[in-house]
């Protein structure tokens, strides 16, 4: 009976541990792109996986970092342990305690501390910084494994070997190393596991255009994960499982002596595998780092889901420039990145108020309009609006514009939607999606109460914050790019979204409707700018010029459906309904709108504090 309960309990824990992994494997065969629906069995994602350069590249990045970090940290860790045995007690205690810091310390603190270091040393973040960070947190795990055995090591064998005339290196190899191998391997394995599984420290030490699986997954979680990732995880899991079974079970079946040989063989196989992976990994790593197009590189930093990916290929083909394309979620994330390393990206697409902030903080350079002849395609009115944040139109070229409004599902919302108030209606509890961005969220609350969305009035902000806190229980989640997919998937009734998404979401789900509330809203312009310390200024101009070309802008509009300020492109739209759509090209004179302005450091901190208060409220 007792035994039954034990087994039962253990089975429950195993189910708990493995159910998600099983789900993941099942999802990898799901034909539907959505996690929530089963669309039939398919192997498509496995086929796609091996053709997906991004994922394969990321995989190699992850593996090469993990393997290199493992090898280096295992070596340093082991050697250090041996050296420490001959140091005096105090030194040993101090070093061991320092070594323990990365293990005991919070990953996030380790991550930011290393980020501060690399920043201060002006090291370009990327492969090298991630590797150094990984080695740093791997070494303690190796030492943890090796140190106890070193302590019990019979020092006499080493000394006896020396006494018999062996050189120190020979003595070490023949007398010490054989005893240490098992713990070295165990430590290395631990280091490898930690390195593969790490996200937080990598997240803070990675550079622009360099992703590991963890960081790729984290950014994809917010946009919707590609099913290929599931396929990849399933493969990794099965491979690891297989290896474990090979190492653990097979030797038991064979006779003892054979087993030992078998285990050696397996170890050798694993080693060879690892080495191959490393060399290939480093090759690809070098490849991605050094393989430049014949006309150099260009680092582009744009919003997520904000370009037709074919256009990037087209640009590369036409110009021979190699584009490294990264995405950000909010203006604030982009700013933090650029402020940290103003040469990280060449051409960026921030919004109005953020452009103003970047100009004031000297992060942008003036454009050379002689290199952007296509800028004339941009309508006059947009240049005028841009003056508010870019006086003299010196720094930016408008890319898209739009409003912030409510997207609602007609099958779930019967009433007429014309006010932000509906987002505070108990009826829709758990059915509301809010934007996870400080300015947009506060804008809604401020405008609803009749204030400016640029107010510096503390009371108005406090009122807005309290309203948002009151609203919080009704909110399903604070999201950014996920609003679109969740609304299409009928997972929520109401969502705050940018006007550009309206056309696309209506195409996908005709039940959706977009409105701009009567209280007024924010009107925004996203424009291309070039960073102050860009290393590829000429290419950056080429990119902006390319994006302003009528045919390109039109093609892009068709894909992303955000309102384009490109008049020439608008002329190319064939569907008159869209061309004259109130949603795609709203008449701003009929609605109350306000653009965001840069508010300065102090007011910004006030906004941030209020937003933090909302986010951490119950």
């Amino acid at each position: 009976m007792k035994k039954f309960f034990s087994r039962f309990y253990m089975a429950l824990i195993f189910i708990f541990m493995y159910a998600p992994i099983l789900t993941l494997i099942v999802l990898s065969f799901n034909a539907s792109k959505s996690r929530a629906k089963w669309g039939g069995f398919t192997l498509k994602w496995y086929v796609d996986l091996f053709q997906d350069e991004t994922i394969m590249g990321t995989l190699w990045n992850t593996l090469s970092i993990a393997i290199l970090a493992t090898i280096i940290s295992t070596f340093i860790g082991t050697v250090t342990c041996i050296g420490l045995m001959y140091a005096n007690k105090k030194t040993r205690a101090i070093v061991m305690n320092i070594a323990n810091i990365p293990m005991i310390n919070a990953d996030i603190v380790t991550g930011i501390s290393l980020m501060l270091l690399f920043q201060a040393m002006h090291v370009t973040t990327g492969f090298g910084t991630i590797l150094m960070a990984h080695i740093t947190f791997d070494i303690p795990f190796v030492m943890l494994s090796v140190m106890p055995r070193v302590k019990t090591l019979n020092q006499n064998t080493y000394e006896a070997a020396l006494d018999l005339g062996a050189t120190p290196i020979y003595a070490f190899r023949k007398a010490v190393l054989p005893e240490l191998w098992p713990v070295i391997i165990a430590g290395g394995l631990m280091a490898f596991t930690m390195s593969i599984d790490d996200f937080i420290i990598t997240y803070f030490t990675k550079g622009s255009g360099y992703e590991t699986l963890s960081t790729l997954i984290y950014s994809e979680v917010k946009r919707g994960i590609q099913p290929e990732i599931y396929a990849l995880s399933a493969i990794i899991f099965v491979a690891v499982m297989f290896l474990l079974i090979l190492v653990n079970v097979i030797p038991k079946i064979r006779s003892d002596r054979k087993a030992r040989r078998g285990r050696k063989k397996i170890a050798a196989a694993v080693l060879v595998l690892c080495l191959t992976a490393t060399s290939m990994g480093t090759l690809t790593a070098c490849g991605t780092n050094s393989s430049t197009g014949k006309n150099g590189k260009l680092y582009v930093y744009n919003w997520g889901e904000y370009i037709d990916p074919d256009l990037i290929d087209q640009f590369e083909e036409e110009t021979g420039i190699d584009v490294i394309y990264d995405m950000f979620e909010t203006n604030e994330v982009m700013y933090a990145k650029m402020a940290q390393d103003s040469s990280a990206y060449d051409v960026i697409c921030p919004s109005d108020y953020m452009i103003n902030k970047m100009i004031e903080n000297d992060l942008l350079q003036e454009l050379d309009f002689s290199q952007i002849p296509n800028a004339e395609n941009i309508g006059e009115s947009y240049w005028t609006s841009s003056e508010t944040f870019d006086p003299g139109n010196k720094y930016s070229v408008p890319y898209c514009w739009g409003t912030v409004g409510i997207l609602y599902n007609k099958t779930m919302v019967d009433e007429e939607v014309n006010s932000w108030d509906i987002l505070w209606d108990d009826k829709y509890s758990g059915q509301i999606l809010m934007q996870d961005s400080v300015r947009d969220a506060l804008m809604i609350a401020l405008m609803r109460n009749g204030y400016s969305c640029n107010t510096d009035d503390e009371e108005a902000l406090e009122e807005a914050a309290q309203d948002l806190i009151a609203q919080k229980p009704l909110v399903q989640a604070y999201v950014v790019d996920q609003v679109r997919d969740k609304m299409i998937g009928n997972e929520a009734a109401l969502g705050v979204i940018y006007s550009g998404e309206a056309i696309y979401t209506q195409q996908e789900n005709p039940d959706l409707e977009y409105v701009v509330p009567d209280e007024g809203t924010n009107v925004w312009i996203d424009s291309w700018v070039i960073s102050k310390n860009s290393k590829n200024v000429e290419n950056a101009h080429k990119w902006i010029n390319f994006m302003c070309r009528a045919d390109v802008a039109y093609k892009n509009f068709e894909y992303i459906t955000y309102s384009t300020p490109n008049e020439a492109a608008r002329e190319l739209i064939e569907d008159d309904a869209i061309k004259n759509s109130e949603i795609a090209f709203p008449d701003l004179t009929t609605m109350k709108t306000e653009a965001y302005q840069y508010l300065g450091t102090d007011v910004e901190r006030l906004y941030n504090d209020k937003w933090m208060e909302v986010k951490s409220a119950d």
Partner: protein
Amino acid sequence: MNLNRQNKIHNGKKQMIWLSTPYIGWSLLFVVIPLCMVLYYGLTTDTWSFTFANVTHITEPGYMKALVRSVELAVIATIVCFLLAYPLGMILRSMHLSRNGFIITLFILPMWMNFLLRTLTWMTLLEGSGVINGILNVLHLPNIHIINTPAAIVLGMVYNYLPFMILPIYTALNNIDEDLLNASRDLGAGELQTFCKVTFPLSLPGVGSGVTMVFIPALTTFAISSMLGGSKIMLIGNVIEQEFTSLYDWHLGSGISIILMVVIIINMMLNIAFDAKEERQAKSIKGGKR
């Protein structure tokens, strides 16, 4: 000749000490200096003048709440992990596995799957129209709605950090000599008394390191809360992450990190004190046997 060899041995020893210097350098550069930089940033304004404002900013309602909530959730997650792991440790001990038991490896295996992916799958499982509710529907049971709630975050923490609790507890339990338990029974203690007076006190070091290994990552996580909490629930980790990645206030972010570091340093000092005690005991055992 003999003297020559003695010299050689001596030199060999001396050379050995040098083996540890590369790491000492490494750890100074990549561990000590970065932490000093966090201190420096945390205790200065953006014009580099000294201030405590960044640290005391924690008392702002938004930040305080995040800290309190983090501690709450981390404590709950740690307790749940402990309650799940301890019986499992007892069961595993009673199975008398060989040292590198396959079953133990099975508890580490999930760590080879990316931790974000594992957490993400819980989203799939827990969502309103997710797998678990699908199963509950088939069974005509009421649905659960814990996604985007603190419960989901605790679940994510427990799921991710449970192995860190299981392993040290199992190791500690497994190291208890069976005869100690027999001695307790022999002296009249029932199973419960034996557990309370002998088994549990002797497993405390394992429980201690398990608690540390679960509590600290749970306290400081930001990925789990942002994935399973729908960004509705801010933990102190999310606050720090935001200061660095979106609000661009490194001084404030560092200031709040200092508070975390203080918690961790207290923990470390307790560990050191404990280790020292342990070492003394170990030494006296050796001495006793001599």
